[in-house]
């Protein structure tokens, strides 16, 4: 059920360096059942900013959906300034989320980097509900950028890596994975493309990754957000991240 709706801001607060968590409420929230799906958010007034911004669903609790966003440009700056009670127009829920429904009573690994961490939280909750054991490895630039550590700790083991070593393991998420040799059956990952590439290379078990690309429509109509498909399994040659993804099997796509 694709919807365009004005959601109302219930809360909008800073949770780490340049990082905000916004809780929104509205009718369409009840359809946000799939972790990994995203909202296409309208920013600014008038038509000065013509494109919407894609943001992942970080959590759904009762009538509220949370998004966690890092301020990097006009749109996210604008979002950070919006007060409680303000309406935010979204298209939602978009895309296909993580295939978690058949994952039961397993040990799974979640690997997130920066603002790739948010969708993994909603996923972790769903996986936990299905009796899975969850280990999380999260990578951030530095200590002050870390968010949601305790929330992930409540659901299982949570390891942190920072680029500068100011907290947890110094280095990348893949360093943590190598050092620990977790005995897991599946992994789910979201983060910057170089991180995803390293993750895919270091893992030999089945995994799912969530990709990012600049988007126009967000619904599959404009062909802005394509990625290369693994030609061994698909003659089409490409996937639309907004419509076929953003979550793909690690084998399904070729990262550039």
């Amino acid at each position: 059920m694709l919807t365009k709706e004005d959601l109302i801001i219930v809360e909008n607060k800073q949770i780490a360096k340049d990082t905000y968590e916004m809780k929104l409420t509205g009718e369409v929230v009840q359809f946000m059942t799939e972790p990994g799906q995203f909202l296409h958010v309208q920013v600014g007034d008038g038509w000065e900013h013509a494109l919407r911004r894609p943001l992942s669903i970080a959590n759904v609790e009762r009538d509220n959906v949370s998004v966690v966003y890092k301020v990097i440009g006009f749109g996210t700056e604008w979002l950070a300034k919006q007060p409680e009670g303000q309406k935010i127009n979204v298209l939602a829920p978009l895309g296909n989320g993580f295939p978690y429904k058949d994952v039961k009573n397993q040990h799974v690994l979640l690997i997130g980097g920066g603002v790739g961490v948010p969708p993994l939280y909603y996923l972790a909750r769903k996986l936990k509900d299905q009796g899975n054991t969850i280990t999380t490895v999260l990578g951030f630039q530095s200590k002050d950028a870390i968010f949601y550590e305790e929330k992930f700790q409540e659901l299982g083991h949570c390891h942190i890596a920072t680029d500068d070593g100011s907290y947890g393991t110094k280095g990348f998420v893949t360093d943590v994975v190598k050092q620990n040799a977790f005995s897991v059956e599946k992994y789910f990952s979201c983060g910057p493309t170089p991180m995803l590439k390293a993750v895919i290379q270091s893992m030999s078990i089945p995994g799912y990754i969530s990709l990012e690309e600049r988007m126009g429509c967000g619904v599959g109509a404009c062909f802005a957000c394509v990625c290369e498909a693994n030609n061994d399994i698909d003659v089409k040659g490409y996937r639309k991240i907004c419509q076929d993804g953003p979550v793909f099997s690690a084998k399904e796509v070729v990262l550039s």
Partner: protein
Amino acid sequence: MNLSVHLPGLSLQNPILPASGCFGFGREYSQFYDLNKLGAITIKAATGETRFGNTTPRVAETSSGMLNAIGLQNPGVEKIISDEIPFLEQYSTPILANVAGSTEEEYEYVAKTLSDSGKVSALELNISCPNVKEGGIQFGTDPTLAASLTKKVKDISDVPVYVKLSPNTSDIKEMAIAVEAAGADGLSMINTLVGMKIDIGTGEPILSNHTGGLSGPAIKPIAIRMIYEVSQVVNIPIIGMGGVTCKEDVLEFLLAGASAVAVGTANFRNPLICPELIDALPELLDQYAYSSIEECIGRSWKNARESAPFSRS
């Protein structure tokens, strides 16, 4: 209020249609509303073979607009006819099929295949795509080439042919006159303007293709001016487009000389824009004391025919 407009091959119940490339093949937006509401549907460009288009990033936001360099990605004309158009056949809305290519032969092949399929109401010859290295734009900037291509496509097509003009030319009137003389049944204008955006952080262009086509409200005044000029020197109808976001824009395009109005970029921000515009038109026309679409078309210059600077007569 009667919103209907009758153009060659296209009997429109209202003057609003989505622009090519901004509406896929209709499926996506059919999740938001009944496509029977639309005056017509322009589908994404078809080429002879499958095209994968440019590498990403393919879009960038700019002030009141956006740049795109999709590069005509499409599954090829045959797959479009077999896999995409059947979905649209459940609607009574006429289909305007956008035709692209690198060579005259490719354009002819695509046009003939679409026309022979019997499934489209008219063709829109895209001689104005700024994002592919070969074809497209060179046909769109050289009146002789454009006329020759138009004539060839007209010869093999059973459905009317609209030629989509590029604004990236020094004299768009000359192009319009040339393709009209070659047999074009109508014009579509405008396509995007070549532009560029540089990421000041990396110091590099954002689009992997470096340049892209600018669309959205930023280009509206250019579209209005070009339609105003061209509509006075040709006798074929114009489907106007470029930055339409509200009902007032629709009226402005009609007054400039367009007979129908296409909406592109605005669909991305508001998927419901087309039906909203259609619903809002009667009251707006009423407010300005127009009783039909016909009455609005070219009104900006028709009243002042004698003094119009671009009049041919």
